[in-house]
């Protein structure tokens, strides 16, 4: 009976994540994506108040506070999950307290919907004043001349850019020009369920550190009779951390070269296929949101994902740990990602300056601290890192170690999404389902890569 009830509950939870899942598909392609941020936490969706409810009294308060002409900013973003509630709280608070008579009207939508609407809106001059999305989207917009170059941001606002970690700031640049200001930064971590580790006779405080350990632990933690899996490896995701760990890579965006066809990659893919097909440590063909749900239900012992898992795991009372992605012969790496505030082309000057003000507000340590503490996102403001509260936060501490190994995978490269969807994801899927031998899958992917790079 209990099991039945459980399966119904799980079904309902899965339904929620699928609901979110259909709103997001481009987002699934990268674990470090803003889209999946939104997805994985979508369970609490629907509790947020409507933007229009809030704006009425705010407007009055502002009229009294300031005599300058009122500026209303349209703001689109992809934060459909519980992190969206926190963002809305911050924006509402800004609307109430700012002295520049600025009112921000926020519009939240799933990532793929935003990606459909925004280009057309920019082309027809009906775009919002500023937008918040994953940095992997920057390059296609820049190459189509659809975003404002905001290199003058530091000069205009007086924000000290040297206080922001270099690698985080770099994500908002394309070809050396600034197109956005950082909002959050993340890499993929290794989450592990301490209770399941203990039950399997492993040290619950020690996460695997190498590829060998990962495979060994995953095998020990898999128990088909209990529907329990050692390591969730969703398809429709790229596993750059594995390729990099052994010294392989996909491509070099700087020189447009194909780096797929290598001994290192072949070894990694062979290892991966063995793990999936022979050892069956992961449920077959699951999607990211499904893996999130199973992790929260305690059916999965280890899983690699971004910071957005933390809130869900806390809510479900899972006893979990966070470790860096595992190392191979060449070291440990993890794909980096993040979100930036950007300004669409054609935003008028006064609105652009007003948007600068909000970006500046976001970059203050108070806001960054609130965001990191509530959502478990790593801290990248140098002064904030010195903050004793941040330094004593257990989750943020384990994260900051795991964040050090962040590495850019085709960020800022206009072919990134095509490489993912047409080359890398099919390759990993074929290897992981056993539909092709690692040799054939790699060869086919390498040919597909040549085609994409030739454009």
């Amino acid at each position, binding site marked *: 009976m209990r099991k039945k009830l459980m399966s119904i509950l799980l079904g309902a939870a899965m339904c929620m994540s699928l609901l979110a899942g259909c709103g997001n598909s481009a987002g699934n392609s990268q674990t470090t994506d803003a889209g999946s941020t939104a997805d994985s936490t979508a369970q609490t969706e629907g509790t947020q108040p409507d933007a229009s409810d809030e704006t009425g009294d705010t407007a009055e308060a502002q009229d009294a506070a300031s005599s300058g002409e009122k500026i209303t900013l349209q703001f689109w973003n992809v934060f459909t999950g519980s992190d969206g509630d926190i963002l809305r709280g911050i924006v509402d608070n800004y609307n109430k307290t700012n002295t520049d008579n600025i009112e921000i009207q926020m519009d939240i939508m799933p990532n793929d919907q935003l990606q459909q609407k925004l*280009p057309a809106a920019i*082309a027809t001059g009906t775009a919002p004043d500023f937008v918040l999305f994953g940095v992997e989207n920057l390059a296609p917009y820049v190459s*189509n001349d659809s975003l404002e170059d905001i290199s003058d941001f530091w000069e205009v606002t007086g924000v000290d850019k040297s206080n922001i970690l270099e690698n985080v700031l770099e994500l908002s640049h394309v070809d050396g020009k600034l197109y956005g200001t950082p909002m959050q930064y993340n890499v993929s971590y290794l989450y592990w369920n301490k209770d399941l580790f203990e039950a399997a006779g492993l040290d619950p405080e020690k996460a695997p550190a190498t590829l060998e350990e990962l495979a060994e632990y995953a095998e020990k933690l898999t128990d088909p009779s209990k529907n329990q899996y050692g390591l969730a490896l969703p398809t429709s995701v790229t596993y750059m951390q594995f390729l990099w760990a052994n010294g392989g890579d996909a491509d070099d965006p700087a020189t447009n070269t194909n780096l797929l066809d290598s001994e290192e990659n072949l070894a990694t893919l062979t290892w991966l296929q063995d793990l999936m097909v022979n050892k069956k440590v992961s*449920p077959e063909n699951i*999607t990211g949101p499904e893996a999130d749900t199973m992790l929260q239900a305690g059916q999965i012992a280890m899983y690699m994902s971004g910071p957005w898992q933390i809130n869900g795991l806390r809510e479900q009372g899972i006893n979990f740990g966070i470790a860096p992605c595992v190392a191979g012969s060449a070291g440990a790496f993890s794909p980096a990602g993040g979100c930036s505030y950007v300004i669409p082309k054609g935003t008028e000057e006064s609105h652009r300056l007003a948007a600068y003000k909000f970006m500046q507000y976001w970059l203050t340590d108070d806001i960054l601290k609130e965001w990191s503490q509530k959502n478990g996102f790593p801290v990248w403001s140098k002064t904030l890192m010195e903050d004793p509260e941040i330094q004593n936060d257990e989750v943020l501490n384990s994260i900051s170690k795991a964040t050090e190994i962040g590495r850019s995978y085709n960020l800022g490269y206009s072919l990134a999404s095509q490489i993912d969807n047409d080359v890398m994801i*099919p390759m990993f899927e074929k290897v992981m389902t056993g539909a092709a031998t690692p040799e054939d899958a790699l060869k086919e992917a390498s040919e597909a890569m040549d085609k994409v790079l030739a454009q």
Partner: protein
Amino acid sequence: MINNKGKRKRYEAQNQKSAYLFILPSMVVLSVFVFIPLIASFVISITDMNIFMKDVQFVGTANFTKLFADKRVTNATFNSLYFTILEVPLQIGLALLLTVCLAKNNKYSKLLRSIYYLPFVCSMTAIGIVWSMLLDPNMGLVAYWLKQAGIDTIAFLKDPDFAMPTVIVVTAWKGFGYTLTLLAAAVLNISQSLYEAAEMDGAGSFHKFIHITIPGIWPTISFCIVTSTISAMQMFDQAYVMTQGGPLNRTETVVQYIYDRGFQTAPYDLGYASAISVYLFVIVAVITFVLRKFILSRGEDADV
């Protein structure tokens, strides 16, 4: 005489003018949502245009050359045909079978017909989500039951070989109630005297079905075949919701690939996506033409 004729012409012309006025509202709607997009997609298909709509260039047939070399187009075409060839007969066969039992005007038949009609009124998205929940190998109810019964779990939507058949069965399950309603209405319209005459000639219920019922409802059957074939060739939502085209692109249909090229994969190549749309348009047009010709001629024979 001449005068009279002129009058009549004027009268006819007036009559026609008001006729145009009556079709104006639907013409406006059709133009905005069908004709203009149709023509636009033909035009876009011969250009190099992305979703940003900047630097649009005329490229002639380049998109079409690319299309015929694209393995994913072949794969998607195969999947669409595979879906259509199995789904349409399944749905219509199931409906026909139940029509035999339920084409009566008693309460029981009416109730069952309404129940079978229910899934058709529901949104495909909702149905897709419910079924993928039920059929999920890790968390689903069906998998749980199968396990209790000692049967090895089939991964259904997660298994490359079972995914498409599962989508087909779910779609047929959703649609057969509609076909059933149409067919039952047609059957009820057949004159009872035909059946009585056949009985007098000593025909059994099987012969009555083959020789009276089927020919009597043939126009309705052919209507159902044509419309469900067209919608099956344009299948999108069920696979999008239940499988996202996977596993291994085994459930990716032509429409899904169009959506993927146009809106999911940068550089959001609208030109190429439109070229695939034109390709699909031609396929559907040919199939419809052939079906109509074949089925309608048979229908006329049957009428005679």
